[in-house]
């Protein structure tokens, strides 16, 4: 063996050794799973419980078949997390994303619904994953490695919400509970809506997302909800090219003089009434003068779980007194 070859082999061996040492540091995540859950959530009166599984549900990623009752559910959407717990599947949930803070005892992890990390999700060995966004082809990737995924994207109407609740319930083996929760939400909203007074002209509103006049139109879910409550969005039709989240100008807002201003900053900041009237020209706005500024809980306003009833409640009560 020439000197050169021996040197090469020694270097190669050293590199290999370093490789193995490094790789030895990889740690095994513990598999997260929930304790065995009681499967029977049905209120049927028959003597033998109907087999809940396998079940096929229709989701935004097509027809999904769940072979057996899931016990290691991962939810990457706060809204879906709320639905899961509302239909009684809480015990089956193994992990939820970082922003799923309701209910408080949900097993929060650092997973992100915005930037889903396939490997991190897979490391938890889930038997069912719920997602509200298909970013970066994550659904296809997860399905590609054999994980069952149910994609339920942001709804466009209340009917969508009820359907999602029922889908979540069916997928987790709580079919009847799902129907109940959906019915409750529906009747709750109907009751609130009946309290909405008849108005000659619908009230106009400005929905504020940031300090820079970013807003949403009634093409969004929240916008549709507010429309149901008899409110007109001043941002509708202003800038068709800008999509559902346009940016308005101060002049426009002041000019249209909305009856109500909803404040729901995504970053959670809530300017006080004084700060708002300090903005140039705002002191003259009807909404400011009459105290019609409604601060909405951004968590509720950006989600569409069963707590949508609370949103309706806030909105209806806040606008009830306005003629």
């Amino acid at each position, binding site marked *: 063996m020439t000197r*050169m070859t021996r040197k*090469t082999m020694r270097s*190669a061996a050293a590199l290999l050794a370093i490789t193995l040492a490094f790789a030895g540091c990889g740690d095994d995540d513990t598999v997260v799973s929930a304790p065995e859950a009681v499967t029977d959530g049905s209120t049927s009166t028959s003597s033998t419980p109907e087999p809940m599984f396998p079940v096929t549900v229709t989701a935004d990623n097509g027809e999904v078949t769940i072979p057996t009752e899931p016990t290691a559910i991962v939810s990457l959407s706060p809204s879906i997390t709320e639905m899961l717990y509302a239909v009684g599947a809480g015990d089956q949930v193994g992990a939820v994303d970082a922003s799923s803070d309701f209910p408080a005892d949900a097993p929060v992890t650092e997973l992100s619904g915005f930037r889903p*990390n396939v*490997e*991190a999700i897979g490391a938890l060995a889930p038997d069912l994953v719920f997602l509200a966004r298909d970013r970066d082809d994550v659904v296809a*990737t997860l399905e590609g*490695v054999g*994980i069952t995924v149910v994609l339920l994207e942001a709804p466009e109407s209340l009917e969508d919400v009820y359907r999602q609740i029922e889908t979540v319930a069916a997928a987790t083996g709580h079919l009847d509970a799902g129907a109940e929760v959906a019915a409750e939400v529906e009747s709750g909203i109907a009751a609130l809506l009946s309290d909405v007074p008849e108005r000659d002209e619908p009230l106009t509103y400005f929905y504020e997302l940031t300090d820079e006049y970013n807003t949403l139109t009634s093409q969004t879910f929240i916008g549709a909800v507010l429309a149901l409550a008899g409110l007109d969005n001043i941002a509708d039709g202003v800038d068709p*090219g800008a999509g559902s989240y346009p940016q308005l100008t101060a002049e426009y807002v002041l000019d249209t003089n909305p009856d109500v201003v909803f404040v729901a900053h995504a970053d959670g900041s809530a300017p006080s009434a004084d700060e708002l009237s300090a903005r140039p020209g705002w002191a003259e706005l009807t909404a400011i003068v009459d105290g019609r500024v409604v601060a909405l809980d951004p968590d509720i306003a950006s989600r569409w779980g069963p707590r949508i009833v609370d949103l309706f409640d806030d909105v209806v009560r806040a606008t009830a007194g306005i003629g």
Partner: protein
Amino acid sequence: MPRRHPTRPPLRWLVLSLVGAGAAVVVSVSVGPIGVSPFDALRVVVDRLPGVALDHGLDPTRAAIITEVRLPRVLLASLVGSVLATAGGAYQATFRNSLADPFLLGAAAGAGLGVTVALTGAGSELGDSGTAVTAAAFVGAMVAVALTYGLGSSASERTGASLILAGVAVAALLSALQNLLLQRDDESIRDVYAWLLGRFNVAGWDEVRLLVPTAFVSLTVLVLASRRLDLLALGDDEAHSLGVDAGRLRLAVVSAATLATAAAVAVSGLIGFVGIVIPHAIRLRVGPSYRRILPLSLILGAPFLCLADLLARTLLSPAEIPIGVITAVVGAPFFLSLLRRSRVRPT
């Protein structure tokens, strides 16, 4: 008496570099939220090969994640690293500037504009966003460089300075357009920036398949051209007198380098510093001959980016650091050290 070729890379270096690249791949495939030993990783990969069945003891989901998610990602990062490093070296040779990078002629701005068009407003209505973005990035990069070449080439062009000027102008224009579009569509800013900073988390076998043919052709052309690129170092006149048509060589090299760069950018976003740092660092070690720099850049660009991606996905797991940030964190100190070296050496 066997002698060492004065300009070709010694076999020893090539072998060591290849071993290093291989080691980086093995390490990267083994490390992640699902940790496996390199042997298990290799067994899983071998089992995946058609016609082979090997017992690896991992449950199917984990094995699938290794072969369908992690492996293509590691391979893609390696390939993109190779491409960017070699293209960077080729650009440095073509423009006789050891600080040139593959985005010099506007490829980055063009790709960025393409992606922005695809992700904002009207563009987002067109088809599946993943494919549209990739295609838009590629087309944008190629169009930008073609525009630069068209504007900057003149018959009497000697040093490529006019090309560089045209590149600066084109990049500025396209960036301005990009910013205009972004201003109007607030929602997409996050998506576009994520793309701009580079990422491998969407890597799958599709992306690998997309890049391999282009990379193979381009890298072959560049390595084969390296002997003549060394002649360019003498200036266009002397190169001509030695039998090399500098203008045509430049066009061929820029085309090949840009093609591969555009494809790499299309699948992984804009990853800076690789194209400058790798060839430059290699030059500091092996001298100015591109017959050494280009092949070594090709091989060593792979483990560099592969390991950078490893850091990107493990340091803040499950969050991912944009890979452009990692390469910048490595690149900046490199340049600072270059600065210090140049100050210390007596003139």
